[in-house]
């Protein structure tokens, strides 16, 4: 209804002297030197388009927004789409929180418009189309790995529909991400990889890293602060962490050239803003930056107040006299400790043998004095039969009763287990969630071609509002007016974090495929050739077939038969 109202409001706007719907493109690179000596680079490309794909509004003229995605949005009535491809696991304890978390493998979650009648069929079709667009195995998403989380994945854009019947969530933990996924992703950018920050995205360097993640997020956002009309936002993000030992040859010194084997010479001409941010919060004790910039920017990122040096690529003087920008970050000392992430989680399979096992999920709250609730989402394939009565949640040796549990049991070969829990994590504690399972015996055609590799169980998702570290230092020494610092401001007091645990690799009881194969092949051959022909010989009676008599003879025989004379 809101959309319809927005539509009516938007129509006169289209009749303005500039009938062209406004679109806008921004690009941005954030570089964060990590305490481990590694370096984290995060690209974000944002395309904003004031248009409406819905309600039969046929959009045919595309400028900055990629047409392939626009058509997907309108054909499948997508309200929100989030897809990520990740190779590697984000090491929260070494690297801190990422700007955009993603689980290893592929993750896809989509909110459909409430006008969609058959969500499952649309979802199936959508995954197949996306599979083609991103050159990935998303077509392996089916009902056995799709869930409808009730609380963990809320829409990130505007809109007030939160009926989780219109939400679909699936992960493919085994998906391997490589250049063939990067190329279609780069093609969605207005400048491609020809100009702007995207020239840095060379696959030979991006895949020579510790962590690589690329994502596409589409959501409706407000056009202005009154929010009368909506526009569509497409965010393409790419996160990469380069390793100190492998890529950096062990030297704590990074430059754009060392990271990407390219330097920057220009911004994307289509971009309205093109900036590089370097996180220099720990400067100058830790590292020096060249060329130096006077532009500084402060922002609240993940609950912490960070300072960034900003390089504006739309300004010519950024590139200096050599007309190329090669940022250099050099560590001075390796002292100093990283601020410990307040929330992190890990997961493993306990036990031995191929009959039963136990999944342990550990959630750490490192906050010294505040407890906070987290939402845990577990989606376990049907072939691990969870014994849900063995579910225990303990923290500090005591039973910790979840305040909300949503459990959907699995159906063999149809749908996975879905377990969502709201758990309160006590301060400075480890909360352990354990549940026992039994490994199912699959049918022999259900095994993958490499059954002895094991079967994957996707990451658990932990979503939470974590108290921010800024709110943590109550006795702030920062230069802040006293009147601003007594009551914690709500916006700054907590921030949203999503943490993914590692996926699991579980071995199922696997028959020795070599033996049955030999036996089946051999017996079939023996039966077919030996026994079959012998049986044939023994049971068939052989008769000499008379050549068929001519027509005259047959007529003669009929007459002879009528007369009672033996035939010829």
């Amino acid at each position: 209804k809101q959309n319809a109202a927005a539509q009516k409001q938007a129509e006169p706007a289209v009749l303005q002297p500039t009938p062209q719907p406004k679109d806008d493109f921004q690009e941005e690179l954030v570089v964060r030197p990590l305490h481990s000596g590694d370096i984290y680079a995060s690209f974000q490309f944002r395309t904003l388009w004031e248009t409406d794909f819905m309600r039969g509004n046929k959009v045919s003229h595309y400028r900055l927004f990629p047409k392939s995605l626009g058509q997907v949005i309108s054909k499948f009535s997508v309200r929100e789409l989030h897809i990520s491809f990740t190779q590697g696991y984000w090491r929260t304890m070494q690297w801190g929180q990422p700007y955009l978390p993603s689980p290893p493998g592929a993750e896809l979650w989509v909110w459909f418009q409430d006008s969609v009648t058959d969500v499952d069929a649309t979802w199936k079709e959508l995954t197949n189309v996306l599979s083609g667009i991103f050159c990935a195995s998303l077509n392996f998403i089916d009902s056995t790995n799709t869930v409808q989380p009730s609380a963990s994945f809320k829409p990130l854009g505007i809109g007030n529909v939160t009926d989780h019947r219109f939400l679909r969530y699936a992960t493919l933990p085994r998906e391997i991400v490589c250049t063939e996924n990067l190329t279609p992703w780069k093609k969605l950018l207005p400048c491609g990889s020809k100009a702007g920050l995207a020239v840095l995205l060379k696959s030979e360097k991006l895949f020579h890293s510790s962590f690589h993640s690329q994502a596409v997020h589409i959501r409706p956002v407000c056009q202005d602060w009154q929010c009368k009309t909506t526009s569509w936002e497409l965010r393409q993000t790419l996160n990469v962490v380069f390793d100190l030992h492998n890529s950096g040859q062990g030297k704590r010194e990074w430059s754009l050239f060392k990271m990407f084997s390219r330097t920057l010479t220009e911004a994307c001409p289509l971009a309205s803003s093109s900036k590089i941010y370097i996180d220099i919060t720990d400067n100058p004790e830790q590292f020096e930056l060249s060329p130096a910039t006077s532009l500084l920017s402060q922002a609240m990122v993940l609950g912490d107040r960070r300072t960034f040096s900003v390089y504006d690529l739309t300004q010519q003087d950024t590139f200096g006299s050599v007309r190329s920008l090669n940022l250099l970050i050099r560590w001075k000392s390796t002292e100093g400790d990283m601020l410990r992430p307040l929330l992190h989680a890990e997961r493993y399979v306990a036990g031995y043998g191929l009959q039963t096992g136990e999944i342990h999920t550990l959630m750490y709250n490192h906050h010294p004095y505040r407890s906070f609730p987290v939402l845990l989402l577990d989606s376990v394939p049907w072939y691990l039969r969870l014994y849900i009565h063995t579910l225990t949640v303990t923290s500090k040796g005591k039973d910790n009763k979840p305040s909300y549990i949503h459990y959907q049991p699995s159906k063999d070969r149809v749908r996975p287990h879905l377990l969502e829990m709201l758990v309160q994590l006590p301060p400075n504690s480890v909360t352990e969630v354990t549940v026992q399972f039994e490994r199912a015996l699959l049918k022999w055609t259900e095994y993958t071609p490499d059954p002895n590799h094991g079967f994957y169980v996707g990451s658990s998702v932990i979503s939470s509002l974590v108290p921010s570290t800024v709110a943590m230092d109550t006795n702030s020494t920062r230069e802040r007016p006293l009147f601003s610092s007594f009551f914690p401001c709500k916006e700054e007091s907590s921030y949203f974090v999503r943490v993914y645990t590692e996926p699991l690799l579980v071995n199922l009881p696997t028959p020795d495929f070599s033996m049955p194969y030999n036996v089946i092949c051999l017996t079939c051959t023996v039966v077919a050739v030996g026994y079959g022909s012998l049986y044939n010989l023994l049971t068939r009676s052989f008769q000499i077939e008379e050549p068929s008599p001519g027509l005259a003879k047959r007529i003669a025989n009929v007459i002879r038969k009528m007369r009672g004379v033996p035939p010829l």
Partner: protein
Amino acid sequence: MGLLSDPNRRRALINLLTRLNAPICGMPVEWLVKTMQARGLEVYTQRFSRTLPFPDENKERYMVKGTNVYGILRAPRAPRTEALVLSAPCTPGDNNNQAVGLLLGLAQYFRNQIYWAKDIIFLVNDHDLIGMQAWLEGYHHTNTTGMDWSPLQGRGGSIQAALSLELSSDVVTSMDLVLEGLNGQLPNLDLANLFYAFCQKIGVLCTIQGKLQRNDWDSVSGYSHAVQTMMLMVMKQASGRPWGDHGLFLRYHIEAATIKGINSFRQYKTDATTIGRLLEGMYRKLNNLLERLHQSYFFYLMPSLSHFVSIGYYMPAFGLLAVILLLRALDLWVQLATPPPTTEDGIADIEQSSPGVLSVLTPLVISHLTGAALYMLPIRFQEMAVEHFPVSETEAVVLTAIAVYTAGLALPHNTHRLLSGEGTEQGWRVLKLVALLYLAVLLGCTALINFSLGFILALTLVPAAAFVTPHVPKVLSAFVLVILSPACTLLFSVFFFQELQEMPVSFLDGWLLYLSVISQGILDHFLYGSLVYPLIALLVYPCWLLFWNILFWK
């Protein structure tokens, strides 16, 4: 493979090795943590403590407290689902310093490579097997032996394969592969093949059971050499104890082997770089595996490193032995089924046709109770024994075990006292039938799990079971039956094993060795969950007692 072709790396390794020659073991935990961290690993420690049921006099330990240190090399762009383990035990004294040094050197080299697809865990375990047990239990969050350990902080997913490295001397002339694990489990044969292939490629002398392979198969001496090597493997497997740190991995379905550098006083010497290249090659091969090692043999005996005897060849030998029991049982069954010949008076012996359940059940129950006593009493009564006799705890346990065992021999008389009537001719037949079938099932199951143990037990128990009746000469038969009892089998095995190892011992030394083997067997059960001691005490010994009972049937 360019391991240590870089002179800087080589110098670093040599520095490390020389520094390690200083007696640092007894686990310099902080130093190890710092060194591993400097090499770019994620380092974690695990504390554990264990009080042994009685003091281990071989290794001189009773209340064990230690710390395992392990560093995880995270594979780039891998989701922490698979891992490989390289471990080196760090024992007090400077026994294994070379191995720890090599492990750290390899960690440094491996860290700079980009081809890893699986996390590699470098583990330095304290107190060899106990530390390894604690680490594995912590990693898989199980507790089978009641050990105290602190939970692990970092993991690398499911472990695909593991190698344990032991370099006992500064001079290494050949590399020895140890395969026998807990309860006679063996790793996949492909792991042995991998080791052999790489030794051949690099040109390192490789041995199994400390014996070099010979090429003269057709000659008598070559053949007997191979048989000797295989018999050593049979004896080691039958003992059911882990013969290296790898032995404990096998329970978790992780293919593992121990590689030992040994000094066999040959001219040819192998330096640490060569061993490093060997390990690098093996790890790269294991790293490339998509699936776990499978579709190769898990049941095999090795007469040399390049040959193996598959289950299809050795199982019939055991099968033929077991068939004797079944035929004997069939014979008895037929005898029992045919009605007894009527005497000339025409009166059938009525008593004989109904032996009664009690006459069979009583010996069964009593012999099993004796077995249970043999299993429980030695540990329970050690304190009492120490108070009353001038012996140490270990001696108390072993001597109590022997005493209970011998006391069991007096059973037949006690059994009969419990029985109301006289034992009948039919009675011992039924009892023997039961005992024969019991033994056949017992040996069959044992041979499936641990062929060597089943075979050795069958060799001694089957003849005893076949011949024994109440009608054979008592004294001679009793002597033969005692000689063929499980305890004497163990005694002979000790001497035979020493003979095979070309280290013959005098009778007195052999006896002392025998006592220590018993204590080790009991310890293996309580520390690592070895099943040989309970198997012998609770099943094999009672079964043998049944035959003893038949011999003294009245």
